[in-house]
């Protein structure tokens, strides 16, 4: 599969780019800090470590997804590696899907590494795992879904030769997607039917990243309903498909100057 070839190469490139190592180091440092913070706040070490650890994994992953993602297509256009590549028997949409898969793979590996660090920190503090801890894996899975969606958005904007603007737009959509519930609530409170409908529509159009936030629940040891896991997975798959379709349509018609 041509997209797979592009994906493996994207993964290899990302891994060799030394920026990644700094981020992982930072994440591991956060884990160590979590252990020390856990000593300060008595009785809630588990809560603190899970909260801090998962938040760090999520934030760092998001930063990576945005900054690397926005360069995925743009860098190949700028460096003109794309020209030799598209002369090969590979379709433009296969190229896009391959870049997407490669970065998601990279993020998955990094997330897995950081989760191991989290597990180690948790074990150190609680001297053993409980059944409730398995829900942490669900929270990590949700984070992965979230990162995949951010990557898709970043890839979409990456098709345009405006790296600064692309980064801002991707970041903006991410923030908007975190607070879209507040936006909709405002519509309920504002006593204006037209505004309420508009904000409601925007709510469904925006990528709702808050769907994937289970950090609070998991830290408190709550179980996450299986139906929610299914829904979130489907949501991510559908939304990512939409974004990749849009990117493919635009990219297929782009003159590569």
């Amino acid at each position, binding site marked *: 599969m041509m997209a797979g070839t592009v994906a493996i190469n994207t993964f290899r490139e990302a891994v060799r780019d030394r920026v990644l190592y700094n981020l992982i180091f930072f994440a591991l440092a956060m884990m160590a800090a979590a252990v020390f913070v856990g000593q300060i706040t008595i009785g809630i070490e588990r809560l603190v470590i899970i909260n801090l650890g998962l938040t760090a994994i999520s934030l760092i992953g998001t930063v990576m997804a945005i900054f690397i993602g926005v360069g995925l297509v743009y860098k190949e256009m700028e460096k003109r590696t794309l020209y030799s590549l598209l002369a090969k028997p590979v379709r433009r949409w296969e190229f896009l899907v391959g870049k997407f898969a490669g970065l998601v793979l990279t993020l998955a590996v990094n997330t897995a590494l950081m989760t191991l660090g989290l597990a180690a920190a948790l074990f150190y503090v609680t001297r053993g795992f409980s059944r409730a801890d398995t829900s942490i894996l669900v929270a990590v899975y949700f984070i992965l879904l979230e990162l995949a969606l951010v990557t898709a958005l970043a890839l979409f904007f990456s098709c345009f030769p405006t790296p600064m603007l692309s980064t801002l737009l991707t970041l903006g959509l991410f923030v908007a997607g975190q607070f879209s519930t507040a936006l909709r609530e405002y519509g309920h409170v504002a006593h204006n039917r037209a505004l309420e409908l508009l904000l409601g529509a925007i709510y469904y159009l925006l990528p709702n990243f808050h769907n994937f936030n289970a950090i609070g*629940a998991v830290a408190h040891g709550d179980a996450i309903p299986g139906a929610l896991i299914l829904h979130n997975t489907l949501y991510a798959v559908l939304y990512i498909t939409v974004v990749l379709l849009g990117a493919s349509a635009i990219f297929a018609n782009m003159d590569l100057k």
Partner: protein
Amino acid sequence: MTGAARTRFTRGATAAIPLLFVAIVPLQRGIDRYRASMSAPEELWVGSGTLLKTISMGYDALLADIYWTRAVQYYGAHFETGSSQFKELYPLMSIALTLDPRLTVVPRGGSILLSEPNPIGAGRPDQAVELLQQAIVGKHDDWQLYASLGFVYYWYMKDYGHASQVYLEGSQYPGAPIWMKGMAARIAELGGSRDTSVMVWSQIYQTATEPRARENAKQHLMALHAQADIEELQKIVDNYSGHIPRLTSLRDLVEDRVLPDVPVDPAGYAYVLNSSGVVTVNPASSVRMDILDAGKHDKAAE
């Protein structure tokens, strides 16, 4: 791709996208339902104020503002939807206060929102007390905090003993107005009397900066004024032994020259006499007597 194949692909993709969005709507609805059934306080993001303070890397003041703003929005959203659940109101405010102990609007404004009974507020004066005590720990020489705390004890909890103590303690700090000592003494003496209540609410009305708090104070004052009027009028009605065999309205008292005119309440509406012979506020009036139920004071003070 060139020409025809490209156009086909573009058309296909453009048609598929809105269809997929339509499929997303029921999914999102489902997600919202499941998340609502989860008990975790997602509103709080991170549930511990101290933790937040540690990791906020110097942006605590900003975060404090954000949390206070969210507390107010949370209050607004729940108030509008008629919900009686203000579960996260106190935690949000407490976190804001932890992040910035000098943000006095939080304990002062927040204590009112927490104390006022449903549907106006959370109906949790105990949480208001905790919040104010947390504030006092961070800033023990701010007389306004004691004034707010004394008020919560007095009005919402009818705890006259603590109210008096708190007013007294607050009165000794720099900038404390003269009336605080007097208030302490009055409360200790008389328990909850209407005059004390009027005094207390007048202070709130004069010193409040938030428009909603001022409005609330004004409503209370009007209601107290009306209450006094009604008691007087009721006495007159009960003791009437004039020419008209059976009083049907206060107008009768005017005709019988007992009253110069039918008295009006602070909102300008005439008081009425109902069929059971009880004087009440005019139904059309904006004066709301029910808000006094929270602070029903007993003449027989403890």
